[in-house]
């Protein structure tokens, strides 16, 4: 009898976990966004160049999920012209503001949680961690969110070559493939964001997500 109760409890817990993401996506499917504006990235890491490197990697994966993505450079220019330069401030604006300014269905808020390199004897570890939030500009509802991190460890080379190659590249280009990898894991199945109207699976991809 005890065993039966345990079984029931465990199976309830398992189904409880499994149904949660479906609920989240049903809100997404109900709103069917078509266009995304990516606003300046909030940087919680100590690497000052992180937002600039990251922003260059965001348009392609989002567009390839089938969305109209507003050109990031133009978006920045328009916000700057309005005196909106501080990412903290921009992330706190009412979401409706991004509909007024751009006509975007959703706004993507990205926060860089970590963007660092550690050197331990013969190996180096590069880490990036990002949080993504898609917010509906008309209702202010959170349609989708994801936290992703990616760690790349390299070993085998001497500490001298690791440091020298990193220094030669100014530590900039090293992060780009990691940011791309993190974006891909965030936006593409099995987790991912449902596809938009420019994708051939539009409104037929519900089964791809757990």
């Amino acid at each position, binding site marked *: 009898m005890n065993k039966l109760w345990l079984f029931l409890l465990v199976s309830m817990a398992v189904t409880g976990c499994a149904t949660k993401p479906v609920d989240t996506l049903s809100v997404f499917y109900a709103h069917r966004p*078509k*266009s995304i504006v990516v606003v300046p990235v909030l940087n919680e890491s100590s690497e000052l*160049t992180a937002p*600039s*490197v990251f*922003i*260059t*990697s965001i*348009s*392609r994966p989002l*567009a*390839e999920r*089938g*969305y*109209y*993505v*507003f*050109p*990031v*450079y*133009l978006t920045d*220019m*328009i916000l*700057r*012209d*309005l005196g909106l330069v501080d990412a903290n401030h921009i992330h706190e604006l009412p979401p409706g503001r991004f509909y007024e*300014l*751009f*006509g*975007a*269905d959703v706004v993507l808020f990205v926060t860089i949680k970590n963007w660092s390199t550690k050197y331990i004897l013969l190996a180096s570890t590069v880490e990036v961690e990002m949080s993504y939030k898609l917010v509906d500009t008309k209702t202010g509802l959170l349609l989708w969110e994801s936290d992703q991190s990616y760690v790349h460890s390299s070993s085998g080379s001497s500490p001298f070559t690791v440091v020298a190659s990193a220094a030669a590249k100014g530590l*900039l280009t090293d992060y*780009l493939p990691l940011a791309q990898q993190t974006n891909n894991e965030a936006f593409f199945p099995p987790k991912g964001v449902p596809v938009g109207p*420019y*994708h051939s699976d539009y409104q037929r991809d519900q089964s791809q997500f757990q």
Partner: protein
Amino acid sequence: MPKEPSRTISKLIFLGITSLALLLTGCARQEIFYWGNYENTLFERYVENDNSQTETRLQVLIQEAQNANRRVPPGVYADYGVILCKQGKESKAISFFEQEKKLYPESSILMNKLIERINLQKNGSDVSKSSDAVKRGGNNE
């Protein structure tokens, strides 16, 4: 005797199916848009603070996409329009904003604003109009 042709036919069918499958997987892997060097132009502008090559690179991207009969990614025509606008080539800029709008109707609200702003600046010789245009955000960086 009758066995030979049927074997050839089944071989042909097999070949047909395999090549179709190959074709389909090939298509599935192709991206929706032709990206060319677009990410490089962003990296140059954002990270290296160098926009000297942007115009040429965007021209090349658009040309290559057209040659390959592929779709120009969202934002590329608009991006190019902004460069033309900064160079004072207003009517050419407007035609690129129109192209962005035609290809991607989702951009209409923003493109219309940009076109309206250019027209205001072009026609607005009186003070109130031009100051309004500046308030809406000129193209000064």
